[in-house]
């Protein structure tokens, strides 16, 4: 295995609405920031991979427009996943492992403001038995939350505390959309209140990966990806044990997360109740700083929020605030698919 690190990370300020900007206009500043941070030019990048969704844009092949922002002509080595950018990062990591690239640019973006994201996300559900009922994203999360409450794993007060902790943490995050004390609000779908749900917003993120000595040359303290793995559960909600996340646990095991404790965890939990599930699956106790960025409860640009977890965890290592961090990304309803990466800084205790 090659040593691969995240050497640069940038994200936009996440906003409820960005009518004046097209996707590529949102994206370009963060692309330039990661290139500037490493001193790389677009033509130096070995592989480019992006994540986004046509269903957010309401247009086919919407990612091709965004590709203009990376300088894709003359032709570059490029790929796209119709998923969160965390999975684009995984593809780029594999590409570097194969030896076909030494550096990779990974980016993702989501503009949720043009549509109703709760309805849009129903189109990713099983089209035979579930999609025709249009259960929205909050409804499905609420079913999981009630299952957790029935199991005695949490209650509404504890969920509100998760929301509060996340948004207070986000007060130090200049990019966050929702920060500070946020009222619990009314039920959106009971037992989830407004405060338990992520903000709907637009945003983008970009990361540069590099291998071995290239990474050392580009970044004073690279965030080495010591392990990364992603797993999926049965798509039928009624088959799954909603109070647990075996796919997260398995991904974490394969990524080596349980070999030594982590000091930081950036969890992609758009709903408060999902943090309860993830903490259990990842065996995180209070010694771990969970979502110091505020997490997806503070900013949830769909398709970028998972990549941002990897970026936030890496940035803490870059800044020397973490030596060993766990980053998690999710996709699909009720934590259907989960990715876990373990990131480390070198000379941790020197």
């Amino acid at each position, binding site marked *: 295995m090659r040593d691969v690190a995240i050497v640069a990370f940038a994200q936009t300020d996440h906003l409820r609405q960005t009518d004046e900007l*097209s996707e590529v*206009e949102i994206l370009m500043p963060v692309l330039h920031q990661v290139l500037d941070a490493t001193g790389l030019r677009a033509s130096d990048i070995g592989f480019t991979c992006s994540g986004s969704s046509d269903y957010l844009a309401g247009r086919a092949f919407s990612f091709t427009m965004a590709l203009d922002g990376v300088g894709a002509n003359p032709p570059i080595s490029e790929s796209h996943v119709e998923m969160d950018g965390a999975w684009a990062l995984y593809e780029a990591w594999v590409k570097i492992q194969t030896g076909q690239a030494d550096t990779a640019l990974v980016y993702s973006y989501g503009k949720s403001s043009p549509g109703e994201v709760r309805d849009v996300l129903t189109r990713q559900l099983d089209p035979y038995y579930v999609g*025709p009922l249009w*259960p929205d994203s909050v409804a499905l999360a*609420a079913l999981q939350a*009630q299952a957790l409450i029935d199991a005695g794993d949490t209650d509404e007060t504890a969920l509100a505390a998760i929301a509060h902790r996340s948004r207070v943490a986000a007060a130090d995050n200049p990019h966050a959309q929702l920060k500070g004390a946020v009222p619990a609000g009314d039920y959106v*779908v009971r037992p989830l209140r407004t405060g338990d749900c992520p903000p709907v917003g637009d945003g983008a993120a970009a990361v540069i990966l590099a291998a071995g000595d290239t990474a050392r040359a580009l970044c004073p303290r690279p965030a080495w990806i010591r392990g990364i793995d992603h797993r999926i559960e049965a798509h039928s909600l*009624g088959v799954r044990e909603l109070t647990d996340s075996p796919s997260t646990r398995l991904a974490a095991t394969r990524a080596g997360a349980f070999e030594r404790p982590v000091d930081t965890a950036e969890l992609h939990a758009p709903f408060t109740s999902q943090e309860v599930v993830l903490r259990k699956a990842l065996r995180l106790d209070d010694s771990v700083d969970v979502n110091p960025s505020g997490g997806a409860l503070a900013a949830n640009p769909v398709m970028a929020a998972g990549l941002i977890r990897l970026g936030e965890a890496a940035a803490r290592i870059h800044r020397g605030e973490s030596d060993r961090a766990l980053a998690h990304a999710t996709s699909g309803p009720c934590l259907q698919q989960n990715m876990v990466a373990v990131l480390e800084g070198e000379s941790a205790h020197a």
Partner: protein
Amino acid sequence: MPETLSAPLVVEFPFTRSLGPVQSAFLTGLRERTVLGVSTAGGKVLVPPVEYDPVTAEELRELTEVAATGTVTTWAWNPAPRPAQPLATPFAWVLVRLDGADTALLHALDAPGPDAVHSGMRVRIRWAAERTGAITDIACFEPYDGGDTGQSAPHDGEFTDPVTGIVTPARLDYRYTPGRAQSAYLDALSRQHIVGERCPSCHKVYVPPRGACPTCGVATTEQVEVGPRGTVTTFCIVNIKAKNLDIEVPYVYAHIALDGADLALHARIGGIPYDQVRMGLRVEPVWTEGGRHPDHYRPTGEPDADYDAYKELL
């Protein structure tokens, strides 16, 4: 800077899907008020049924009939139903394990309020009056007093006139905003001007501008008026009439390099017989009354452009 443009954008699609043997039996069964599950080698009954075991990936074909009554395993109260959801009045989303089944089915529960719902409560299917072989043949669940019968029995899955496919209509409503660069382009078009944007790095003028130079990967910022005249760089003759398009075939569709632009845009050529259109032909836009963009381009009568003048734009 024009005001930010926005327009409704509707994406509508009737996805037509074929069904495998298990899905076909399940959905046909719903039409006949019969709920079928599928049995696994481990003796579990999965409802709704799937064709492959989610644990072992083994093929599953053994159908089992279960009861139309069941138990709520988890629920969520929906105070404000969204347009296409099963009930228009507030309801509970529920996962229901039907009697005789080992897994749960997602649907809606008609109940007077959240205080009337709890996990473990007994419910039964309320069938839709008109059933077509779809999950919506279950109108919803409703509260039910009887106990768990654990009822399950083998079923051959045979029905007359089985449902072999479904159509799942979907409609999503968006409000499209084209962003800064394209807004400026559309705004100029409404005044019958065509504008591009120049890349600050390679100085190419892109039209229509999308806000970025695909070669340099930087924002294009300087607005440049191009045309109105231009040169046909390449073309094709269209012989198939498009649906809902009121243009006689054959007609010519061409790439046109507007004067001052470094990228050809495409448009229809008119005002000249189709078989006389050629590379290098000089053309100009024809605007129709109230049109938001040129209807077509027609010859200017100038001599043809020299090949060297446009060869880089092919």
